[in-house]
């Protein structure tokens, strides 16, 4: 069996790359974890390289045998998980550095907005990632640490100083991480949702939508219908990615609550109704994080989809019962 190298560049609006993928004796499989259908690039890569494609929703392959991961992530989790594991990642969507794991997304390991046209055969072979061996030469003082953290016998004052320094540094690092999270994930979504609200309220769409949404979201039967539809096992993986649909529908219901078209106590069952598909797109990746066997993934995907379907409507009803007395005047 002969394998060929391919080169993948970013598509329009994409990020990262170009990546060169060279199948080897050990790495000659690649995984695709996309909600729903198989993207056409999977076929193309299979044809060009001679590698075997594996559907991540059906089965799993060990990380060290994975040459490539193909995903369709809008910027929440998946786009960072494979780069974090050190697996070359191809995103079908034009997602850049984003999500909670964005620090692992680099142009050397990740490329996005990839279609058929971005994939070409190449003669070059990918350089094997050489593990950087740090030679163990130990100078008297490490340059990375201050002298106070290195001296063997600490005086009490030094101990207090070091302790306080550690507390401050931990807080400071936490603050840096938090600001990054806010800038990279919360504020972009807020801008998108705020624009959506502007369009809904400023144009006439809001009134049409209110007529459509109020009877659905303003009573328990309608909410059960929403929850039922979202939990249908063939639909739920498609509604999941990035929780975008749930977040948009939630915002639309929120706008109607704010306008007084839907009573506020329905907020509680609505929270459950819009999210019965919770995590259905993420099952193989989540089970991967749990270090589950391939067999467990095969069983786990349909199992969780079924249990979401069984639970979906009861969750809405229980939430509705629990909403009695909420915001009662």
């Amino acid at each position: 069996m002969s394998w060929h190298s391919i080169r993948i560049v970013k598509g329009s609006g994409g990020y990262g790359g170009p990546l060169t993928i060279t199948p080897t004796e050990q790495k000659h499989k690649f995984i695709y974890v996309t909600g729903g259908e198989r993207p056409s690039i999977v076929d193309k890569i299979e044809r060009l390289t001679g590698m075997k494609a594996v559907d991540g929703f059906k089965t799993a392959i060990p990380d060290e045998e994975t040459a490539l991961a193909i995903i369709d992530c809008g910027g929440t989790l998946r786009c960072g998980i494979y780069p974090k594991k050190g697996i070359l990642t191809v995103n079908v969507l034009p997602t850049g550095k984003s999500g909670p794991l964005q620090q692992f997304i680099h142009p050397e390991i990740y490329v996005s907005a990839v279609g058929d046209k971005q994939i070409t055969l190449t003669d070059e072979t990918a350089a094997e990632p050489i593990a950087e061996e740090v030679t163990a030469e130990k100078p008297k003082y490490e340059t990375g640490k201050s002298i106070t953290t290195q001296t063997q016998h600490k005086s009490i004052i030094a101990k207090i100083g070091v302790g306080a320094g550690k507390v401050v540094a931990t807080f400071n690092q936490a603050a840096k991480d938090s600001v990054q999270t806010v800038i990279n994930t919360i504020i972009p979504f807020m801008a998108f949702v705020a624009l959506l609200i502007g369009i809904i309220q400023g144009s006439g769409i809001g009134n049409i939508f209110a007529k459509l949404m109020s009877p659905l979201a303003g009573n328990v039967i309608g909410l059960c219908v929403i929850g039922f539809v979202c939990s249908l096992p063939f639909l739920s993986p498609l509604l999941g990615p990035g929780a975008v649909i749930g977040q948009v529908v939630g915002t639309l219901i929120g706008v109607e609550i704010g306008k007084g078209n839907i009573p506020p106590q329905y907020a509680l069952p609505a929270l459950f109704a819009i999210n019965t598909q919770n995590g259905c797109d993420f099952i193989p990746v989540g089970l991967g994080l749990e270090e589950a066997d391939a067999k467990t993934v095969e069983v786990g995907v349909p199992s969780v989809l079924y249990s979401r379907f069984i639970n979906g409507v009861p969750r809405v009803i229980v939430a509705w019962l629990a909403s009695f007395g909420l915001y009662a005047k």
Partner: protein
Amino acid sequence: MHYITDFASGFMNLFQTGAKTFIGWMSSIVPVVLLLLVLMNTIIAFLGEERMEKIAKASSRNVLTRYMLLPFLAAFMLGNPMSFTLGRFMPEFYKPSYYAAMAQFNHTSNGVFPHINPGELFIWMGIAQGVQKLGLNTMDLAMRYLLVGLVMNFIGGWVTDLTTAFVCKSSGVTLSKKVALSSKSAETEQA
């Protein structure tokens, strides 16, 4: 001419309405969530992940701790998506169920503790902002969201045990219900 100016001002109105909403959130939600994130991230950095792993090992035996206590703590301590990694201490059979419960805890606790899942905050915030607009306290809603979640996510995990058994039966696969005490490498060899 009249119509054109009307159209133009109507068009701009869409963005002005959106901008007002945006800056409202920027001055109300963002600072609160940010400061909360700072404190939570600090606490988590001090407690450390090793302690969570010990709790995870102890919790895998009992159905209540497995699908209620552990996922709740994991969501609080590790958030989305790292909370899933604690599932590696579960026997294979229970991993899908832990996933099912865990994914939901990453949302239902998000109203009270937005540091858990800031990337998907608007599942909660989208609806809560409407309640906030009416001048009501969203914490009432957040508490009930958390409590209903606590019960129903547990049931969700439990039901997944049944569906896993069903799928196993129909596909002829057997998964171990015993905790694999061996290390990771031994597990993958088995597979």
